[in-house]
């Protein structure tokens, strides 16, 4: 059933092409088309995840260089996540951007980016992964640039150059694996050939480190994080949510594939690469939280928060330990849902009140009780208050860290996570407090209701429910992740 793998990749491209050929100017028709296409894409992805198997060598480019697709447990989780979040963002966008400019262009690139991400999720070798990574950058760039304001263009340029730089480092990893490995198809445990590596360990390890840093750039890993808070907040909120919530996870997936399926966890365990990676991840966790704490612009604060939270995931992956790996996968899903939701609320609040500064949101809870209620639940989930989403994933991360037996980082990691959780509470919670409890001096009785319509509240409700559900029942997902991890570490 190999051909099924092509459906989720090609369908969004076909949808984009259809929109190019026949731009739907009437709002109702575009709405119907977009939502139907995204829902169908989710169905196709589910079909592919359920039925497809094996690998599909599609395009042989040269000797030993073939665009190949395949699906495994990891691919199932990531592709379903992508399709699901895309549908929600698509629905959100229909109301949020109803009267903006260049809507046709926005939707075309929305579909193209989804196709690129599917290519990334279903890649079965390094070449296809790299292809997906490049396409993801190029197709999502127009989303970041969409408003064409000065800050958006500056952010877009940063996004482009950091991503291309990261891709170049990833390409070095490709050349290295191709030279020192048995082919570049993904295999649990890695493909390095000890006979070829012998004598070149230093170079191969350095290439692995650079690949992690390069692909990590997409997930905002220090020192290549600076583009993220510049680019994410400047996009329309629907795209911010996808950039922060989903596309950063594309970088995470690349890191997983390269480390666990190409170089191999065993090759890196206990080397300087692992320690340097752990250090970078922990620095990023703290840095992101602290920058978010001092940031006053709502969306930018959320973007810094993404830097921090994506680094949790990279920290879990750097431990090269099964429990931590499961925690990282769980956090991928949880953070994706929460950050999408938070950006939706930010978008709705900014749209309705016109205020971008968090200090100006006093009393907004009375005007938008449902939106801010969802915001509160999502915030609690991100902080990691049980029984909400973030708790289980962070628990697993900390447990894995302590069980890993890595000197210093083993106990330093949970400590840093704890401090960061406090900071997370510090930058998310005051917004709730001032929204619902503005103080006696603010006359809230006359505030007109600003609650957005169902196209915004529905995706928000779904994400909030997802946060609660993953917190109450993390079992199935954690077990699936643990099963994947068992073969890798």
């Amino acid at each position, binding site marked *: 059933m190999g051909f099924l793998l092509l459906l989720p990749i090609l369908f969004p491209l076909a949808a984009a092409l259809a929109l190019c050929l026949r731009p739907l100017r009437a709002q109702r028709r575009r709405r119907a088309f977009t939502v139907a296409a995204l829902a169908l894409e989710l169905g196709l992805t589910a079909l592919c995840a359920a039925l497809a198997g094996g690998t599909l060598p599609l395009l042989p*480019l*040269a000797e030993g260089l073939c*665009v190949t697709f395949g699906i495994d447990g990891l691919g199932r989780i990531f592709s379903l996540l992508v399709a699901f979040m895309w549908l929600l963002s698509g629905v959100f966008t229909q109301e949020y951007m109803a009267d903006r400019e260049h809507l046709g262009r926005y939707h075309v690139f929305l579909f193209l980016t989804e196709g690129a991400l599917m290519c990334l999720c279903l890649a079965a070798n390094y070449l296809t992964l790299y292809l997906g990574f490049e396409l993801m950058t190029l197709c999502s760039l127009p989303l970041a640039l969409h408003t064409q*304001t000065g800050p958006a263009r500056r952010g877009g340029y940063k996004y482009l150059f950091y991503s291309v730089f990261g891709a170049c480092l990833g390409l070095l990893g490709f050349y290295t694996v191709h030279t020192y490995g048995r082919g570049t198809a993904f295999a649990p445990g890695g493909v390095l050939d000890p006979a070829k590596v012998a004598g070149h360990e230093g170079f191969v390890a350095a290439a692995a480190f650079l690949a992690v840093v390069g692909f990590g750039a997409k997930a905002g890993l220090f020192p290549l994080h600076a583009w993220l808070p510049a680019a994410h907040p400047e996009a329309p909120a629907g795209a911010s949510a996808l950039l922060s919530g989903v596309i950063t996870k594309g970088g995470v997936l690349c890191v997983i594939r390269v480390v666990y399926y190409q170089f191999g966890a065993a090759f890196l365990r206990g080397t300087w690469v692992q320690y340097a990676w752990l250090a970078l991840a922990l620095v990023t966790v703290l840095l992101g939280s602290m920058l978010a704490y001092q940031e006053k612009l709502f969306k930018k604060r959320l973007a810094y928060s993404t830097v921090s939270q994506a680094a949790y995931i990279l920290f879990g992956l750097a431990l090269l330990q099964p429990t931590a790996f499961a925690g990282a996968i769980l956090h991928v899903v949880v953070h994706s849902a929460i950050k999408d939701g938070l950006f939706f609320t930010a978008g709705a609040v900014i749209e309705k009140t016109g205020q971008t500064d968090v200090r100006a949101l006093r009393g907004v809870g009375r005007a938008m009780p449902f939106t801010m209620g969802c915001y509160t639940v999502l915030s609690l989930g991100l902080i990691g208050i049980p029984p909400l989403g973030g708790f289980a994933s962070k628990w697993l991360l900390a447990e894995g860290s302590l069980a890993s037996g890595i000197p210093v980082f083993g106990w330093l990691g949970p400590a840093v996570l704890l401090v960061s959780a406090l900071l997370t509470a510090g930058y998310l919670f005051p917004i709730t407090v001032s929204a619902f409890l503005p103080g006696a001096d603010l006359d809230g009785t006359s505030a007109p209701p600003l609650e957005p319509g169902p196209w915004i509240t529905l995706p928000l409700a779904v994400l909030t429910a997802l946060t609660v559900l993953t917190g109450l029942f993390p079992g199935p997902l954690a077990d699936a992740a643990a099963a994947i991890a068992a073969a890798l570490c």
Partner: protein
Amino acid sequence: MRFLMLFAVLLPLVSGAVLPLFRFRRRQRERYVFAAVCAASLAVLALLLHGPAGTLRLFPLTSTLIVALRLDGAGAVFAGLVAFLWPLASLYAFEYIKHESGDDRFFAFYTMSYGVTLGIAMSDNLLTLYLFYELLTLVTLPLVMHSRDVRSVRAGMKYLCYSIAGAACAFLGLMVLYTLGDPTLRFVYGGFLPADGPRRTLVLVGYLLCFFGFGVKAAVFPFHGWLPAAGVAPTPVTALLHAVAVVKAGVFAVLRVTFYCFGPAVLAGTWAQHTAMGFAVFTIVFGSAMALREPHLKRRLAYSTVSNLSYILFGITLMTPAGLAGALAHMLFHGVMKITLFFCAGAIMYKTQRQYVPELTGLGRYMPVTFAAFAVGGAALAGTPLLPGFLSKWGLAAAAMDAGGTLPLLGVAALLVSAFLTAGYLYAPLVEAFFPPKGAGEHGLAQAHDPGLLMKVPFFVLMAAMLALGVGSRGLLALLARIAAGRW
């Protein structure tokens, strides 16, 4: 079939030389030039399909030195490239040159240089190659100076001095080969110098003289200065000659000298190889960095050519078959990609008189075909998979990784740095064109539009060629690998 080689070389030469005699009107001249160019290209196509055709001796200069033609694998790659691009560039030139004067002169030399380039590709020995190489300088000089203003005359003189001096250096190397090797100077895969012969230092110095001498046309640092200056020529000249024919003639000559005269057996592992490779590696990064800081679009592309020619030289100086295969692939692919980008720059200049990158703001909507071609060419040159640049760079990098050693690995690093810089200098104009600052004045944009059909046809053909080469090059790359291993 042997006489077909002579036909392919002489037809453009002669028809170009006699063109001014006819005093054509515009339409007639276009038909005449296009017919001559296409006939020569068809002859090359027939030669390529037919395969090796033996040697055609034309006339002896001395008892051993004979001017002769022969088409082998490496020559076929070069000849095939120019034969594909020349008709397209001619179509483009027909429309472009309308706004310049002196059409007869232009097309006469333009057609003649085709024959000379084919002569270089089909040279049987180094002397014949040298002859055509000098001739190429002379017939392309009037094209550089075409507009005859101060700047273009100065650029032309610069080009002339660099090229003649380079050829003189190469001639010294040729003397070394003549004395210590084979007095016929006939190209043999693997070279004709004995691997353990006498006067090793002289041999290596001779090689470097050839490398840098011919390297002048390949714009290797520090002899690259003429190429950005020559951008004052009309765009069809810059696109075809300064991105493909002339500069690749330099690269091709270095290839011949390295693999077919001195030979990797003599050179590999010597300080001469390291010197040559070191300069190539430096030029890769240098050219890209200069391109990034150059705001003039055509000069930016010229610096990009400087960088990319050294990709090819890097592959050659690896002195392994895999490296040569990568070099041949990049020679082909870069030709197609860069001519597209130059055509775009020319179309923008032709339609809007804009020459600088910041002036491209907002043009994307008004010239969609031009900028689509620029996007495809730019993404290809930056090394996006499914487009040809990725494949040739992969070939070069894989060859360098296999070769191992400090300098080749440094070369891989240079390729990656340069890829990053390439994205910088090619994507930035696209962002400017398609995502102008909000509220930017659209003054003078309304009358900008895509050029006419004659210029658009090459865009479509080249875009299709890039997409086809990007995904369907497996057979071609295998063929290049065979050629690089000396099996054609």
